């Protein structure tokens, strides 16, 4: 058992923690960052890398949308309306998906915001294993390096799902990209392992499991998924690489293998991975809703345990990706029913958030706008997920733009909105400065409106039968595609404004924002902004729950 005795030892490093001393100026120079074991600095390094990957993945997305602005037509023997070639298009689509999933959304909240705030929220000095934490960042970089290398071998064009037998019949670019995802997966495993041990062992005195903030509960559920699901992805990716290099024949029908087995393996990880991507977002939203409603969150226990419930159920739904892959009907029905079950704990969360808003004194600052946007978009994403879980409907919607719209509503409308809200919320704690509120709200307006303009038409396109991943489409789909492309430029504008807002805030000279500019109640707001190197002057002793507003 952890001995939660208060720290009675004097600090044995020479400097005190007077005003102005914080984790940012604790040591100087690039090298001190690259070798830092401080969870806050590692969090910031993840912030920068994830934003860079997001820029690359986002540019790929904008190129894809630009290509789809017009249907390609043959006029006088010349193709018009094409921006990139078909083979460039499939590569853009593959890298957009792989980068956004493996390098942006999966590490996005846990490894960046989680790294920075999980120890602070439970009153710890660091995560349990700081060296593994740093190693995880290098794993992510290594994975990204391999992904870049794959581009020099012609690039992969399998889509981010690497379906066999196509992925095993191809160039070595697939092997490199798959190895990149493999190495990047270790980053995720190490983060998860660290968080589980940290939550179990490093809570401050009095910080019982029923007092940890909901963000920590969400990260904890996510961490369990990262530890249990990612190894299965690792072996799957290893088998794909082996299949490609040595033709071992597990997935190759020509050698007696079974390509659908690959789909089972892949989705056994990648469906739980969907919750690795969304559960941390739920956690951020719980923090935002409580802080900006200035009210004790409604149904703390229900929200906390529903995260665990989602994590548990998520291991038994993977077959909903194979309704039309020749899976048995019985399996289809069972997977369909269990998938719909996920809607229950998810709806519990949404209802509790809405109940928290009831009769609250809501402060509509930019982080709260993102939280509201999240609830609106995520609900659409979640409900359309139930459509897709219905076998009869899925037979029609499968591999159409309906699916594309659905998961973008969940992943972008959900996770990215939460990241943005979280950045604006915790920015004063991380850097001791406020982001300009007008710019923050403008970024929200462009992202939120642009998002709906981009992806709502895709539901309609999918329902009308436009297949996903294709380079071109029938001219009848052109008006809605144009709308979608214009929306994507609005999203792009919104993110550029957000980037300018962040850089502007970092460079600006401001009065110190104080420890707790939002008046929030969780522990990270009790220490200075930015926090000192070892987080708290004195180990906090916790005597109450995380949301004691009124």
């Amino acid at each position, binding site marked *: 058992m952890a001995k939660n005795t208060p720290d009675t*030892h004097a600090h044995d490093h020479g400097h005190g923690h007077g005003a102005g001393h914080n984790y940012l100026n604790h040591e100087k120079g690039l090298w001190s960052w690259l070798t830092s074991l401080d969870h806050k600095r590692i969090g910031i390094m993840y912030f920068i890398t994830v934003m860079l990957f997001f820029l690359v993945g986002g540019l790929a997305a904008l190129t894809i949308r630009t290509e789809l602005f017009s249907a390609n037509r043959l006029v006088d023997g010349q193709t018009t309306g094409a921006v990139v070639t078909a083979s460039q298009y499939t590569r853009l689509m593959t890298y957009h998906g792989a980068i956004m999933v493996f390098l942006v959304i999966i590490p996005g909240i846990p490894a960046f915001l989680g790294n920075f705030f999980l120890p602070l929220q439970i009153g710890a000095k660091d995560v349990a294993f700081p060296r593994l934490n740093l190693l995880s960042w290098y794993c992510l970089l290594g994975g990204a390096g391999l992904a870049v290398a794959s581009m020099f071998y012609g690039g992969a064009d399998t889509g981010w799902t690497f379906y066999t037998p196509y992925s095993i019949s191809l160039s070595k670019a697939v092997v490199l990209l798959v190895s990149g995802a493999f190495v990047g997966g270790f980053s995720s495993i190490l983060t998860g*392992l660290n968080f589980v041990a940290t939550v179990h062992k*490093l809570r401050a005195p009095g910080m019982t499991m029923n007092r940890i903030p909901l963000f920590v509960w969400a990260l904890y559920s996510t961490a369990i998924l990262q530890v249990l699901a990612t190894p299965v992805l690792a072996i799957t990716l290893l088998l794909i690489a082996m299949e490609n290099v040595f033709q071992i024949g597990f997935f190759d029908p020509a*050698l007696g293998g079974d390509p659908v087995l690959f789909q089972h393996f892949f989705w056994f990880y990648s469906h739980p991975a969907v919750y690795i991507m969304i559960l941390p977002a739920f956690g951020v939203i719980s923090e935002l809703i409580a802080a900006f409603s200035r009210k004790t969150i409604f149904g703390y226990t229900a929200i906390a345990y529903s995260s665990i419930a989602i994590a548990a159920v998520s291991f038994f739904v993977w077959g909903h990706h194979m309704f039309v892959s020749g899976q048995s009907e019985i399996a289809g029905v069972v997977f369909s029913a269990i998938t719909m079950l996920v809607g229950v704990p998810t709806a519990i969360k949404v209802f509790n958030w809405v109940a928290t808003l009831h009769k609250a004194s809501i402060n509509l600052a930019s982080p709260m706008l993102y939280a509201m946007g999240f609830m609106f978009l995520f609900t659409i994403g979640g409900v359309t997920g139930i459509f897709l879980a219905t076998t009869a409907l899925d037979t029609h919607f499968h591999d159409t733009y309906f699916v594309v719209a659905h998961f973008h509503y969940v992943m972008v409308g959900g996770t990215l909105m939460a990241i943005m809200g979280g950045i604006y919320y915790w920015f004063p704690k991380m850097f001791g400065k406020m982001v300009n509120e007008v710019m923050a709200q403008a970024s929200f307006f462009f992202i939120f409106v642009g998002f709906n303009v981009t992806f709502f038409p895709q539901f309609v396109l999918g329902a009308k039968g436009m297949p996903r991943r294709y380079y071109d489409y029938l001219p009848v789909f052109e008006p809605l595609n144009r709308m979608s492309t214009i929306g994507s430029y609005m999203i792009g504008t919104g993110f550029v404004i957000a980037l300018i807002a962040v850089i502007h805030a970092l460079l600006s000279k401001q009065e110190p924002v104080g420890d707790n500019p939002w008046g929030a109640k969780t522990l990270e707001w009790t220490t200075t902004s930015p926090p000192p190197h070892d987080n708290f002057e004195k180990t906090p002793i916790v005597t109450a729950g995380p949301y004691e507003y009124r």
Partner: protein
Amino acid sequence: MSTVKYDAHGNPYAMHYDSPEHEYQTGKQGVWLFLATEVLMFGGLFVAYAIFHHIYPEVFKIGAKFTDWRFGSANTIVLLSSSLTMALGIYYIQMKNNARAFWMLAITVICGFIFMAIKYVEYSHKLHLGLYPGAWYHGNLEEVAHHVGLSPEEIPANLALYFSFYFMMTGLHGIHVMLGMGLIIWTMIRLKRGDFSPDHYTAVEGVGLFWHLVDLVWIYLFPLLYLVS
């Protein structure tokens, strides 16, 4: 957060823990979590094995005839003994007998070498017959059938699948054996340096747990690959 603190007995611990004991318990939990990831990773392979064994039972039945149960048993005994010496190594550290502990760890590494040497003999024998995995398989049908005393018609067309599993599973396991040997050598160096004491030996214990897991995986591989005929 790398600064080190010392408790009343002079035992070091990282300053974000409360005590060496706190650090030890946390480290051990980390090792167990890591072992869980290993189990799930090998689990994927075992599931694939179960599925293909169900579809093509005869492939595995006949494939296993190409393994020699004597080599397999020898390796099982070698690994089991090494698990014992590993445990004894930790025991002697607890008993403050670092010299003996060092020898126990050394014997564990030597067992690892013997295991890999036997695997090398087995591998070269199979490769010599052309029994490669998957599409690389190029065994001469007559020769292959003769080797296990069957007629050529009795050899399944996709016998190569067995060798895909054989090389994949024992290969991944072999990599873990070598990793484990490296880790044990690392603990031996640290032991010589005097890093461990009866109340501070987390690293050895963690490496020991890893070594036992590698051993355990082999306990499952042995019947699945050698004894299914």
